[in-house]
Each structure stands twice: as structure tokens, then as C-alpha cells.
């Protein structure tokens, strides 16, 4: 996992509430047996119409979205299915940070394990960020703050373990494998 310390990039804003993981990656693309190649289908049915033409009102189709690494989303982003494919698809289109006033539990965990920082921020700062479409923003995980010329500095809360894993690129499975002694002791006592 690539460490994440400071990300400076233009912001894409998807203000819709309750964007579910079916909208991030529709189920018919889940027949893959790998985790690569899903970026091509990110937001597929929102991004393109039935004829395959890009929908002009979809923010990721704006030329200013090119290279954007920060997504500001409406309340309760990533609800629904547990498919990690949603995080893989976002990672592949270059997203490193997702900010919302609420992020669904399973998506939030999936994102963090794939090097994407999920930030849940208070409603008033969230409302400001929703107005920041295509502005440049800096997300600083070392200092736990978001900075922008227009909006100033906002602090954000983050789980200490998630922060360390993202900063150092800690692999969760590798970490868990260091706990095998305790796991064996538990299993011995339970059996």
C-alpha cells in the first residue's frame, strides 16, 4: 500500500446524498476475479448514458476533474453493498481522499485498506467543502487538517490506527499475522 501523507489536488464534488456502492461500481462488473481494471467502470451508469456518451452533468466528466485525487461527497457516501470493488475502482481513477459528513462503515474500512483516506467531517465544514468544486485543496494527514486558499484551515478527526497505517503504508494482514501467538493462545483456551 502506498503511504499517504499530504495530498494536494483539485476537488471533485458529488453532492448527492446516499451514493451507494452499486452507483460507484454496478454489480455487472463484479464478475472479475482480479482487483485491477475496475477504474474503467467507476460510476459507469452515472458517467455515461445508455449509448455510451459521457453525461455532461456528471462532475468527473468535466475537464477540470482530470488528475483530481480528492472527492467531496454528499452525506452517507458508500452505503449498501460491501464490495471492495468500489474502493478498487476509486483508487484506479486516482482518488486518494474521500470527504463527507457520513461515510458508510464497510466502505470506509475498505477505502482505508486500499490507501484511500476516508474523512468524516462536521456538517458545517462539509457544507463549505460542497461549494469547493474544482478548487485546489490540501489534505494533510500528518497534521489532520484540510487547507485551502478559499476556505482556510479545517481540522478533521481520524482513527489513530487508520492514520498510522496510511502514513506508513502498513499492511493490515501483515499486522494481524504478527498477532498469531495471541490467536493461538485464544484458540487453545476456547477449545
Amino acid at each position, binding site marked *: 500500500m502506498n503511504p499517504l501523507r499530504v495530498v494536494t489536488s483539485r476537488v471533485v464534488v458529488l453532492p448527492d*446524498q446516499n451514493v451507494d456502492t452499486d452507483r460507484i461500481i454496478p454489480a455487472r462488473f463484479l464478475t472479475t476475479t482480479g482487483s485491477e481494471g475496475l477504474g474503467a467502470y467507476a460510476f459507469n451508469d452515472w458517467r455515461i448514458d445508455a449509448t455510451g456518451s459521457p453525461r455532461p452533468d456528471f462532475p468527473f466528466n468535466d475537464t477540470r476533474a482530470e488528475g483530481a485525487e480528492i472527492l467531496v461527497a454528499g452525506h452517507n457516501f458508500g452505503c449498501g453493498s460491501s464490495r471492495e470493488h468500489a474502493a478498487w475502482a476509486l483508487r484506479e481513477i486516482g482518488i486518494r481522499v474521500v470527504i463527507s459528513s457520513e461515510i458508510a462503515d464497510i466502505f470506509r474500512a475498505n477505502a482505508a485498506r486500499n490507501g484511500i483516506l476516508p474523512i468524516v467531517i462536521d456538517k458545517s465544514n462539509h457544507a463549505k467543502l460542497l461549494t469547493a468544486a474544482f478548487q485546489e485543496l490540501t489534505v494533510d494527514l500528518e497534521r489532520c487538517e484540510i487547507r485551502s486558499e478559499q476556505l482556510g484551515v479545517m481540522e478533521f478527526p481520524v*482513527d489513530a490506527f487508520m492514520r498510522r497505517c496510511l502514513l506508513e503504508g502498513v499492511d493490515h*494482514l501483515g499486522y494481524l499475522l504478527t498477532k498469531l501467538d495471541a490467536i493461538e493462545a485464544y484458540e487453545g483456551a476456547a477449545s
Partner: protein
Amino acid sequence: MTHAQPATAPRTMYEKVWDAHVVIPESPDAPAVLAIDLHLIHEVTSPQAFATLRERGLRVRRPGRTLATLDHSIPTLPRRADGSLPILNNDAARQIELLAAHCREFGVHLHDLDSADQGIVHVMGPDLGATQPGMTIVCGDSHTSTHGAFGALAFGIGTSEVAQVLATQCLLQRRSGTMCVDVSGQLPEGVTPKDMILAIIAHIGVGGGTGCVIEYRGEAVRALSMEGRMTVCNMSIEAGARAGMIAPDQTTFDHIRGRAMAPTGEAWERAIEQWRSIASDVGAVFDRSVALNASGLEPMVTWGTSPEDAIPVTGLIPEPAGDSRRDRALRYMNFEGGEPIAGRAVDTVFIGSCTNSRIEDLRAAAQVFRGNRVADGVRALVVPGSASVKRQAQAEGLAEVFVQAGCEWREPGCSMCIAMNGDLVEPGKLAISTSNRNFEGRQGPGARTLLASPLTAAAAAVTGVVTDPRELINEPVTAGGVS
């Protein structure tokens, strides 16, 4: 922040099950290491996890605590004359083959398509008696919350976590908040557990349970059969809660007794004693509590693109309100707003999914279909949740009722709920479905979904329009409800 409490402090059921599975307690710097009793896997969210194990030279730590089945990508049409399966495409075929190969390589028991136990993963576990009170159960599927109906702590995980559980039989977890949903009163006739959970989600919202494990309790919950409890817990994730739980009681024990993986003899007696001890203590404190009365509930149906968009079948579709989410949902559903939901013509009816494909769901639907015909121009699919449910439905004559009525009676699988296996709703068509998600495109690109109970879906199938099922029922209905 530690959650250690004196042993005498009253605990919720969630806290008791959590405490019993802590390998390493959580600390401010690290999540807990939590032991997992049962790991269910299927073809869609496991291939990448097995690949991780192979890359790192790891084995499945506890193959005996891992159960596999095929459900998401498989066709629900029978084998062709030459014995081959009508699989949607090469990718789906590859997923199906890979799961079998991985299970052989890693020593995991696969209930494959020719097995007498194959089924939707959340129907199969309880069918087998593998799902038991007090367990921790995970699966790479968000509807794992279903198993909480037995008083298990059961939740969906991502594929990276599937790899963690395969390799260590443990997960890194932070403790959740607790929420209590107390449902008093009695469900009226024709109102089912599906209507109860849709009403709860409409009340607390699609994100109302985020960060929480919900415990359902109260007179109306106690009165539910296990099938009904599974329907309720199944949709906990539709309120944002990773897990839902119901305290085990005699109804639970009677359902488990005698199943293939249930304890027997002295072990059964010991198990019952232990299971009785996991209910929340009197005085246990929940972070949040919500109360509803079942007596005033009506059959529910959704009008929009979120499970929280549920209204009584007698109600009106909400009018546009300058609210971007509601207005987008009305546009997607092609509703003006302000009109009654009853009377809308439906094209497709889907009875199935991990929410409503168990025997009581099929009995309820059959009660409406018996002596009736599917309306002209309507396509109705009835998909049993497992091979065992299918056999029982055939033995009870329900399958014949469906076929006589003009329904397509299928093989077990996820089918139209996920629309990645060949079963889907055509673009623009209006479907009434007993599944769990009405998201944009969930049942196929451009498909429009109304969520409802098996009774309400069957009623729409025979009339061709959204119909209050109470108008069609002459006999008292249990519908996965009152036991």
C-alpha cells in the same frame, strides 16, 4: 479509550458476544483482534482473497470453520440438455470454476451446484444449522447481518478482510455503538416482517444505524418466526448498521434443533444453557433507542431509489420538494409525485433474494397465487433461496401453485436481486421485488424497483398493478410472521 467494565455491569447482547471473542482488546492506538467462529464465502468476493493467500504462501487457518457456496453469479435456469449450465458469460464461468479450485486447493467445503445444500449464502448457513447463537459470523457480503436473527454477531466484510479471516480466523475491529429498536404490539393481518423492517428503515433513515449494531426487541419481534427475524435482520445494513441482532429464545432453539450442524445430545443441552445467557441484561444501556408500534403498520412499498423511501401501500408518492435527492429519485423512477403508489402498472415481479426466499415467504406468495393467474404482460419469477427450500416448496405443492399461476419457478440463487447472473429487469421496466435494494440500476441498468413483501409482490403479479394484498387474502396469513 477502553471499554472494560466490571463483570457485574449490565451488558447488551452485542457486548457479551464481542467480549467472548476478544483475542486482543482494542486500545486508542489499535483495534481489537476479534475471533471469528464462522466464515461464509462465495464466488464473487473471494477470488482476490485466495490470490492474496497464495502470493504470501499462507493456508486457510481453520477450514472447518469456513463454508463456501455459489450464489451470486450462477444462473437460476436449469442445466441444458447436454448437462451444461447456462452461465451468463466467461467471466462468471471463471468465478464459478475458481471458487471450486480454491476450495479444493485450500481444503474448504464447497456446497456446489449439485449439492443438496447449495443456496444463497444467508439461506444456506441457517438451513445447515451452521448459524448459531453467540457466534461471530462474517462473509464478504453486506447481508451477513441476516444471521443476527439467531443472536449471532454477524456482519459483512470487504475482500481484504476475507483474506484476513481465511489466514488468521480473526479480524481487526473497533467496537460499534449500540442501538435498540423496540417494536411493541402485534403485526396486523397481511402485514409481514418485511413491512416491519421497511417501516423501521423509513423511520430511522438509510444512515440511521451507521456505526451501530441494532438489537431488535419487543413483543412484535418476539412473535416473529425465525424466517421473519431473518428478514428483519437482513435489512439492518439498509439502515447503515453493519449488524442486527435478536435475542435467542425457544423459537430459535426449535429452529436449530436437528439440523445437520446443530449440536446433539449433551452438547445440545450445554449449548442451550449458554445461548440463554447471551440476551441483553436488564438495565443494559444502549447508545440510542427507537420505539415503534407494530399494530398500526400497513403493507409497505418503496417509491424511490433508497430503502428509506418506503410508504404504506395505501399512501401517496411524495411530491417534488426542491430536494435534490428526492427529485432525482422521482425522475429516475419516472413518477410525478403526489399520485397513489397503488394502481401503478408493474412489468416484472421478483420473489426471492436473501431477504425473502425462505419457505414461509414462498407459502405467503403461494397463498395469493393459488387459484389465480399472473396478469397478462407481467413476468413473475419465484426463486427459492436454497436447494432445501426448493425441495420443501415442491413437497408442499407450492412449486405447482407457482407454475400453475404462470410464474417462472427457478433454481436457487441471488438472481434478479443483484442482476449479474443473467436474471435482470429490462431498462425502464417497473419491478416489484422482495429483495433489499432499490438503488439506481441495482436490478439492471435503468431498471426501476419497488421493494415489498412476498404478499404484496404476489398481489401485484396477479392484478398487474401495485395492490394492497389485504384485498386479496381471504384466509388468515402468517407470512413469515406470527408463529
